[in-house]
């Protein structure tokens, strides 16, 4: 039964890994952290990466629907009675965005969304050293770790 700590420690085993966290992007809470934070404070980093993840996870441009007809009409915010099924699907259908990569002068940040069987909003954040890190490897490994967290 791999838990949050095991998952984060495995992420830190990647070459060039400097810090890792599991963060709730709705509230900005760090559920678990290991290693360093780029600003010296994991809570600040969690709150900041959460804002970035929230934007990516929520906006329609990044929603995975390839069929434009399946998209809700723009501005359909009102409480129309016909939308209950859509609400349920949005809750448990898995995040449309898989990961987010931010490249800085000195490092890479990979944010990988975690799909849970209940309504949640969590992602894994891995911070890599630019010189030592292997972005392609890290991305694949984070995918596996995110899946491992929810594997029964």
């Amino acid at each position: 039964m791999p838990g949050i700590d095991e998952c984060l420690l495995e992420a830190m085993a990647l070459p060039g890994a400097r810090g890792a966290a599991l963060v709730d992007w709705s509230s900005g809470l760090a559920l678990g952290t290991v290693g360093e934070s780029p600003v010296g404070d994991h809570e600040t980093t969690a709150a900041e990466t959460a804002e970035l993840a929230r934007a990516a996870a929520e906006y329609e441009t990044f929603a995975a629907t390839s069929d434009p007809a399946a998209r809700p009409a723009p501005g359909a915010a009102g409480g129309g009675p016909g939308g209950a099924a859509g609400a349920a699907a949005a809750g448990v259908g898995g995040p449309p965005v898989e990961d987010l990569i931010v490249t800085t002068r000195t490092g890479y940040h990979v944010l990988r969304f975690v799909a849970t069987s209940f309504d949640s909003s969590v992602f894994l954040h891995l911070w890599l050293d630019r010189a030592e890190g292997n972005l392609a490897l890290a991305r694949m490994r984070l995918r596996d770790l995110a899946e491992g967290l929810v594997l029964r």
Partner: protein
Amino acid sequence: MTAGTAATGAVSPLLTRLAEERATGALLRDRGTLFLEDGRIVHAESPATPGLEILLTAGGGLTRERWREAVDRAGARREVARFLVDSGGLAGGELEICHLAAIFDAAFFALSPGSGPSRFRRGATHWIGSVRPVPAEAVERETVRRRELLDAVWPYPLLDTAPVVPREAAPGQTVTLRQRALLRAADGVRTPAALAWALGRPAFHTLLDVRRLAAAGLVETPREPAPAPAPAALPAWMTQAQPPDVALLRRLRDALEASL
């Protein structure tokens, strides 16, 4: 916000002391209960928040039958969480994620300023069992951060308890997936707490989303109630005690005695 930061250590002096003592038991307050084991928080629940059962079952990922089976079969030995994972109902990571969400959510309300006096029942444990203990200090810090976050987003606390009334989006305004789900469930009667139950989301997350929606103009911000009018002074003839009319009372007594 500075006031909140200054109060970080004062969320609950009793909790701070219990954590230092590495106490085990239940800290009971009006708006929720925190369970401690060796000074760390192992569980929390609050009548203001959907509990683990609702969070896990509302989306259909875990059936209510499976939850009940776990409580029936492992509740007495206080290992419900472990049973859920061992029986394949839930992944270990999922359980930790959901349980942490429930702890911080319930703690936010249990430790809220209006939550009344604290009592500690030493030795009390919860049937959910051990999942992933959290330092009490982390829970206190997060509780303060959450209070500040709500007011930083949109400082209208009335939104937290009033029915959520959606407004039309402006032309071209983006309404995100989760916001849409919340707005669809907002029927003008449900409060944020009721929406949290309906959607199977933590109550704090719903408060925060409602504040964000109100800030974006997608939910009505309730007006501050008009200040209650100063109670009109009662006329002197109503308030001033009048001396009893002794003569009248005497006549009444005499009449009553005469009729006996």
